[in-house]
């Protein structure tokens, strides 16, 4: 059995009377692609912020990459990658400058930065584009570059918040090829998406409803458990019971 990279026990976040995330207990193994699903307002972002060391839980326990989410938030930030639908790339820096910037922030040496830049540029097929401003790149390229800089320091785990919104179906799949390849090398992928077909690409999936994890298993078992033909049906069946509305 692979080691757990994320481990939570009754992890909870309250805002006043409102329980945004309610006693979440789950673990994610090394090299796993873990899909974290839920309707808008279900509590996904709150949970993710706690796991990334950006928000201190109200109660419960959790470790990420072996570090405690209460005490070791700085170590967590150094040991994870994060990519959101809103790109954190600098639009007015070039491709090469963005890679150098992120690699520098994560403390890579000059030698490492040089090697890593060449490797990334080659892997993404961006050889002719390194001097282009990121602003001039098509959305699909930005997403691929965004993912690459998020894992430039080779974190054990990368968190991705709706990474594929808005791109064409071919680009969306090329992006998943990158995810698969990273997972194949042992990196853990923690991903949210609104595309239900993408949830099928995950090894396991959790579905949050109103702050609670209502289901957690492989796509195959979830479909069996809820007698559904597709993940879309599973999700729809659970998420429409939600009482809460909100983002």
């Amino acid at each position: 059995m692979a080691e757990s990279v994320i481990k939570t026990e009754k992890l909870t976040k309250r805002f006043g009377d409102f329980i945004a995330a309610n006693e979440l207990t789950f673990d994610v193994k090394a090299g796993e692609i873990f899909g974290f699903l839920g309707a808008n307002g279900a509590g996904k972002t709150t949970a993710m912020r706690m796991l990334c060391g950006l928000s201190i839980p109200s109660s419960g326990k959790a470790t990420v990459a072996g570090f405690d989410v209460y005490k070791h938030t700085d170590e967590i930030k150094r040991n994870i990658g994060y990519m959101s639908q809103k790109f954190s790339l600098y639009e007015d820096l070039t491709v090469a400058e963005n890679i150098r910037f992120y690699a520098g922030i994560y403390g890579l040496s000059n030698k490492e930065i040089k090697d890593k830049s060449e490797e990334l540029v080659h892997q993404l097929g961006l050889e002719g584009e390194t001097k282009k401003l990121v602003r001039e790149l098509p959305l699909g390229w930005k997403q691929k570059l965004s993912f690459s800089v998020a894992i430039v320091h080779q974190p054990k785990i990368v968190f991705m918040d709706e990474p594929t919104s808005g791109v064409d179906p071919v680009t969306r799949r090329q992006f998943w090829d990158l995810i698969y390849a990273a997972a194949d090398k042992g990196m853990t992928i923690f991903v949210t998406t609104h595309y239900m077909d993408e949830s099928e690409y995950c090894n396991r999936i959790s579905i949050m409803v109103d702050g609670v994890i209502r289901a957690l298993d492989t796509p195959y078992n979830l479909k069996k458990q809820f007698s559904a033909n597709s993940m879309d049906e599973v999700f729809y069946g659970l998420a429409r019971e939600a009482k809460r509305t909100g983002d």
Partner: protein
Amino acid sequence: MVAVQLNNLSKKYDKGKIVAVDSISFSVDKGELFGLIGPDGAGKTSIFRMLTTLLLPDGGSAVVDGYDAVKDYKAIRGRVGYMPGKFSLYQDLTVEENLNFFATVFGTTIRENYELVKDIYVQIEPFKTRRAGKLSGGMKQKLALCCALIHKPSVLFLDEPTTGVDAVSRKEFWEMLKRLKQQGITILVSTPYMDEATICDRIALIQSGKILSIDTPDAIVRSYEGSLFAIKSEGMYKLLNDLRSYENTLSCFAFGEYHHIAFRDKMKNYSEELLKYLENKGHKEVEMMPVIPTIEDCFIKLLKN
């Protein structure tokens, strides 16, 4: 009767360097639910903004409800409803104030056209004193739709109304559109979600400012040449790589639970040979069957041609 007509409509940006809309022509019939399906940057928003007279074309022409999109811009603005992709209501006005505002601007009242928005408005009415900026994504979307409808437009333009919205709200939204269609309103809607295309009467698949295909969803699916198979095994990533290196594979890509694969020779049956190939590669529990292509399969094929 034609409600919307585009003739070689074009739009360029950045001193002509970027062609956002490349001489596009199509027409939408009165009462039709018409979908523009394509990814970000395909030109959907530029088309909508030209049809709603918010952007001047660089070439070609467009007619909306009998009026020219350049010359008769005032007439068009009074007759169409437009829901932009970006939430554009007044964040610091309440739900009710926003709706009232839009009714007044168009010279009508909420009461006069209440029947049209009733189904949607009752869902947000409990929050009518809440400021629009404080609403959830799904509720913002419903309010925006009400505001675009309150003057009983002849043509409704909805630019990516379901982007970033969860699967449940997306389904509800499309149910609302079907009901509006029954009231005779012509609807042009854009979306990057291929699965929503099937609900439209007709769709245009667009990419890089050009139309790849335009027809009913059924006809587009029927026009898919050759056979398509779904296949899965224990190790899906390895399977994808192995299928791509199989000599007779034309294209293979992940598709939900299965991978979809098409072969070079459309007429030949490769099943037996392929299963043997995969067995040699060490795959277990391989399952393969023919499938009917979806709109997404068609789009992928058109993109690759």
